[in-house]
């Protein structure tokens, strides 16, 4: 059987094509990785809490995603931000209101300042009902 040989020119051609293909694939992989990079999502400005009937009068529920406290009482629905207005720590709910564990700011149950260093009341979120009956929190 005659021995099959490859010409040097053919080998170089094949090797070049192979190298270009491998390089192209690697480059494509890098490009895809670059394009698929997802930056940190911005904090949600609107949160869907689901059906409003799940939040009857008497509800006091922490909405972790929005760092807010949803309150449904005789005055209606409202939500108070749990972010301290001093430096942004998460306040804790106490019997008398809210206390910041970082620097000791205290707020009433309605979010008004009782003790500094915070000087501004806790912010509020808008609470709305969507057309399909879901409860929506909107950052003001």
């Amino acid at each position, binding site marked *: 059987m005659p021995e099959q040989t490859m010409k040097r020119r053919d080998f*170089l051609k094949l*090797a070049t094509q192979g190298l*270009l293909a*491998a*390089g192209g694939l*690697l480059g494509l992989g890098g490009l895809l990785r670059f394009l698929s990079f997802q930056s940190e999502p911005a904090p949600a400005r609107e949160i869907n809490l689901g059906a409003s009937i799940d939040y009857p009068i008497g509800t006091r529920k922490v909405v972790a995603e929005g760092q807010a406290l949803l309150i449904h009482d005789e005055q209606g629905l409202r939500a108070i931000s749990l972010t301290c207005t001093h430096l942004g720590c998460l306040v804790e709910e106490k019997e008398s209101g809210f206390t910041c564990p970082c*620097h*000791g700011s205290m707020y009433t149950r309605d979010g008004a300042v009782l003790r500094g260093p915070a000087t501004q009341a806790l912010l509020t979120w808008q609470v709305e009902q969507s057309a399909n009956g879901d409860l929506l929190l909107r950052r003001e």
Partner: protein
Amino acid sequence: MTLRRWIFAASLLLLLALLAAGWQESRRVQAVALTPTLTSEVEYCLSCHADLPEISPSHPIETFGCVLCHGGERLALDADLAHSTMRGGRNPSEFSVVEASCGGEQCHSGSPELNRDHIQRATTSIQSTYAGAIASIRYTFGAQSDLTPRYGVSAVQDKTVISSKAVPELLAFDSTNESSPWIQKFGENCLDCHLSAQPREGDTYARLSGCAACHTPTAGLDIAPGETQLHRLSTAINYSQCNTCHNRGNYDLRSMTFTERTDQPADRLHDYYQPIAQFVRCEWTLDCIDCHTRSEAMGDGDLYGSKKDIQYTQCRTCHGTPDELPLTYTITSLEDLALRQAFLNPVIDLKVGDTILMTEKGEPLWNIRPLEDGTYELFAKASGQRFIFRPVMSSGCLQNPEEQASSACHQCHAVER
């Protein structure tokens, strides 16, 4: 070389370059993102520093992150690049950068009225300026005609001088400008105790500088780079932290050198004071900050030339005199400074309506309150231990009412060693 060979070589180089880039990428640390509430800007410091403990309950990482205080390149994953713009190296509380690191109206350079002027007070305090020692040495060796402070270890100004004993400005002391060889030697050998100085070598001197000199407990810790326990801030400061500067020996004015103490104290009684000093039980049982107030330790914002101008706590501050009980007041407002101090170091459950001791200057001794039986309870700020003590009044003390300085109390109450 033919065109085909050029193409082959270029293809080979391209592949090698891509492989090298991929290899480099695979070695890169896995990015861990954090977006602090206060800055709302993502930072990747936790990619390498997730093992660091939270520095204090007042500085949670979710709120502050790292870059706000430390500086640095928040998006860099390469260590050298990330650290290239850090403030103060590993210590952002160095006084040269502390305003950028810890300042701000809502943080530590706010108004005196709101008791947020920590940086102004600390950087003008005599522990920072060393103005008293410098003035004293310059006066002794004839470089100035009186003991008025003119120089500090660095230039500093006080725009609102309150005390008649204070000066508005200190120039930067430079011993090479002095003609006296003794003052020059003082500059070379004796300026390693102020708050901006790097400590002397040795475990007993191990401390950081700036705010961290006092507020980062280092006693017994290895302060070499990488020591994660150094990532801590506290207002519960043990006496041993003060001892990294104090009670370590003496400056010998004859040779203008520091003479290290040579004794090997085995207990607190012998650890606390130099052999020549008189002291009473409070001083070797309690910690320095249990008696000395915030203004004594950190200054009151004025520039003084002697510790006697700022240090005023005496035995009578807590014990009263044969004729008078110590001063007290009842907390009536949630904004009272005592409540804030007790919040930061909760060794005592303090609330509005509680009566506590106060100094003659009106500073709250928030860790001490009178009891119904006429005694007083003190909660040690560093250990939380509860002590009960009596007032001098009705104790049978025979002290002359006109001699109420602590030195007079020491005549009877000093401890023999």
